[in-house]
């Protein structure tokens, strides 16, 4: 039982580290991006322009935040 719990804990830690790591804003940005893609998929070129822009904004913000924190 203990080893199962330990394995589950390690599994959860792996995914937390993988998804959130030291830049939780990128995880939030990905969720925002997925939501925007689902909401905008009928809007053609608006979506084609807006979706990459969302990624660029979150990446830029995360890079700048990385600089401020360091």
């Amino acid at each position, binding site marked *: 039982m203990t080893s199962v719990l330990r394995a589950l804990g390690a599994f959860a830690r792996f995914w937390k580290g993988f998804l959130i790591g030291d830049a939780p804003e*990128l995880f939030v940005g990905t969720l925002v991006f*997925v939501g925007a893609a689902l909401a905008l998929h009928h809007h053609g070129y608006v979506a084609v322009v807006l979706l*990459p822009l969302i990624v660029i904004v979150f990446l*830029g913000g995360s890079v700048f935040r990385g*600089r401020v924190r360091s």
Partner: protein
Amino acid sequence: MTASTVVIVLAVFGASAVEAVEALTIVTAAGVSRGWRSALEGTLAAVLVLAVLVLAIGVPIARLVPIDLLRVVIGALLLVLGLDWLRKAVLRASGHKALHDEDAIYEKTVADLSAGVTAVTGAAPAGAGAVTGAAPAGSWRRGPRDATGFTVAFKGAFLEGMEVVLIVVTLGASSGRLALAAASAAAAVAVVCVAGYLVARRLSEVPENAMKLAVGVMLTSFGVFWVGEGAGLHWPGSDLMILVLVGVFAVTAAVLSLAMRRIGPSRQAVAVHTGHS
């Protein structure tokens, strides 16, 4: 061969090569300090476990999960991973984060292992020192087995390989090219092993940050493309749009690197980074 196939092969090859360099540093350190037999056996065991994971996870995912749902979930995973790699690569390229120094990692691992420390990669101390007088380098066939060398090599190869497995499974499963993605990863590992053997310990000469930046651009592009496709968006030009996205994010990364360089490096970036990733 379509544009997306080419980008898949390049992305998997690049990501696998970067992770293989990091794993090779740890395995080489374990081999030199604790004996090659255990280090190679630990590495082989990790590779086998990772291969089983690819088959056990990748094949069922590709066959059972509806393709649109698969693309949204996998695209999101690729986006998280790609953006994280891009962020680190931009910060390192602009001097705001210390470069990943394989020589420093190698020296530290050898020093720790020679002193009997097993915490280099978070390895459990169980079995540490079970075999004394580890085999000297080169005697990999007849040398005694060393639990510490095996554990450190296994964990080094396994932890670095997990990211490769995720990339192979996500890119391969969602495009229906799992075998091609796995072959590309295997080729990258083979190339790095041969190159590592030829250049001995000069792994620091591998342009790791540039490779990480390029792979980050490709993973991000695939993530954006597949989440859009899975959500029902019809990208203009279909697969060719991936190349456009690669161009857009490459320019973005270059602009961000230049802009961050102008801001100036922080004081702490002078310290050499020797941790994971």
